């Protein structure tokens, strides 16, 4: 699993607009990050609670449905979260060309 994560990180880090990548374990503990630690922990805590809430909401609306991807656009960045069973990936990018 670790090799898989390394490969993903390398691939995404090469995109010019990517500000940071955080990989969390299913308990929202950062296992890999390209940003500084305090910021990572801050993002991990807040974004993971938002994602869990969104995922719960989706299954609440329709029990056969599941959250695949969450994309949040703000004034300065775009945060993309992909939850899965073994890890949660958060990518922060500057939107635009």
């Amino acid at each position, binding site marked *: 699993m670790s090799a898989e994560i390394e490969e993903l990180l390398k691939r995404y880090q090469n995109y010019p607009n990517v500000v940071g990548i955080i990989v969390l374990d299913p308990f929202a503990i950062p296992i890999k990050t390209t940003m500084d630690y305090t910021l990572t922990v801050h993002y991990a805590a807040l*974004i993971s*609670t938002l994602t869990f809430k969104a995922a719960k909401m989706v299954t609440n609306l329709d029990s056969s449905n599941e959250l695949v991807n969450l*994309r949040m656009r703000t004034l300065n960045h775009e945060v993309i979260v992909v939850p899965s069973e073994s890890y949660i990936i958060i990518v922060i990018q500057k939107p635009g060309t």
Partner: protein
Amino acid sequence: MSAEVEELLKRFQALKNVIGIVVVDNDGIPIKTTLEYNLTLHYVALMQTLREKARQVVQDLDATNEFTFLRLRTLLHEVMLCPQDDYFIMVLQNPCD
């Protein structure tokens, strides 16, 4: 504001793949909807919470930043949430594969 809302609804509804559109005012009351009423209320209740949570997350991370758009991709649909000053719009669509 009502003419603005009508025009937006018409524009989005014309797009293929759009399942439904809900326009909600700041008090959480759906002012316009193309979905069935009970489903609308269900979506509004959950989206209201999620919107508030997303706003808090963004403010907490960076007080100068603001949450402008949220896109939830699920197995079956895609939900897009756009908050504005007086209202927020939620669009439910079948994403093209």
